[in-house]
């Protein structure tokens, strides 16, 4: 474990690939998180991505957002992910996420909120969990921008499978239970093919959501029951799908999206989101908006 440098804080993992500038998105997500949660921020990245961050972004902005930068040297699993940018455009890129369970080791905080770089914090709603009773919290349900349930495969690991928990936002403390959770996650990640056979989830992508869902299932006594793992008071993770797009960011808070219909993609509606934390899954859309200076 790293030396504890602060009691509470936020961590982001960001490893660039040849398609997406994760550190740039982490800088933006960090800016929002810092503004709305007022906590120190730690970026966990590799040397190449860190160098690119320093080269591509002004030093004062980096220093203002990131209080700590942890450089890792983990070997990542080959993990080719197919991304959408609207229903009509796709691209593939290596997704470096196989060391996410090591957050317990890398975080410099006593209590940590681990956020994905596409999770934009626009409220202080997550703050209260630092003072809550649960040693660990994650979302176990999600909604689309249209306030609909996501596709079945985003809710369960397979048709008759266990409930999916999301690793997008993970709050944890330094309790024995949290350590056991991350060790179980690591075990599932190390034996991914075996658990894929056992839990029957889709095979193509290494998904940390599957790892955490299985770890929760094991630690809950293999049942869907109350446990030591909180679900942010049953609130929903609000997902902007990769097939949705950002139309306009009126200001830092008010964003207008075009939200597609899951069954008939061409039937889209406009959705305005403000005062709402949001998981912007279309990373190309997020990148475009950052580069255009909209956010």
């Amino acid at each position: 474990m790293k030396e504890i440098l602060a009691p509470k804080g936020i961590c982001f993992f960001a490893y660039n690939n040849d398609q997406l500038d994760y550190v740039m998105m982490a800088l933006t997500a960090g800016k929002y998180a810092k503004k709305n949660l007022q906590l120190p921020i730690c970026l966990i990245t590799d040397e190449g991505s860190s160098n690119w961050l320093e080269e591509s972004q002004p030093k004062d902005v980096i220093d203002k957002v990131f209080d700590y930068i942890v450089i890792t040297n983990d070997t990542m699993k080959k993990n080719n992910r197919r991304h959408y940018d609207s229903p009509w455009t796709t691209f593939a890129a290596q997704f470096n996420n196989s060391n996410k369970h090591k957050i317990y080791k890398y975080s410099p905080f006593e209590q940590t909120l681990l956020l994905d770089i596409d999770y934009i914090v626009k409220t202080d709603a997550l703050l209260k969990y630092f003072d809550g009773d649960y040693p660990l919290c994650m979302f176990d349900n999600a909604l689309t921008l249209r306030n609909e349930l996501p596709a079945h495969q985003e809710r369960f690991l397979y048709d008759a499978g266990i409930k999916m928990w999301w690793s997008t936002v993970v709050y944890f403390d330094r309790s024995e239970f949290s350590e056991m959770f991350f060790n179980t996650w690591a075990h599932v990640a190390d034996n991914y093919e075996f658990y894929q056979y056992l839990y029957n989830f889709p095979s193509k992508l290494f998904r940390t959501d599957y790892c955490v869902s299985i770890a929760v299932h094991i630690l809950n006594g293999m049942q869907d029951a109350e446990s030591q793992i909180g679900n942010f008071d049953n609130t929903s993770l609000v997902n902007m799908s990769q097939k949705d797009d950002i139309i306009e960011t009126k200001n830092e808070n008010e964003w207008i999206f075009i939200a597609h219909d899951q069954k008939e993609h061409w039937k889209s509606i406009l959705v305005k989101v403000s005062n709402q934390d949001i998981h912007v899954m279309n990373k190309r859309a997020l990148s475009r908006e950052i580069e255009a200076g909209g956010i």
Partner: protein
Amino acid sequence: MDERLEKALDFSNYALTINKQKRNIRNRVAQLQIVHHLGGVFIANHETIAFIKTLIDLKHKNSVVIDSKNNPITVKSLPQLLEKLVDAYTSATTEFDIENEKLKKARNIKKIMDW
């Protein structure tokens, strides 16, 4: 076996046991909340207690009250029913609290079983 899995499975058994035990307590509490009165079955919960108290506050001495089986029961003395409900509620919640505190402190299966 992978030590990480072994620990997780140990905890898994503990979680399973404690959850069953919690359910047993809740079942016991639910039973303690049942009040039989003049052939009717009432549940001593916030809703029933508040409703009967409201009738009393509105100067009703007796009333027809729908019980938990959806039958109309002519309650001749509302204060008497209220007293029974509050007694049942208090003994149920007191027992709930005692058992719950015991479970909170039980960090392994042996402790849950009181061995």
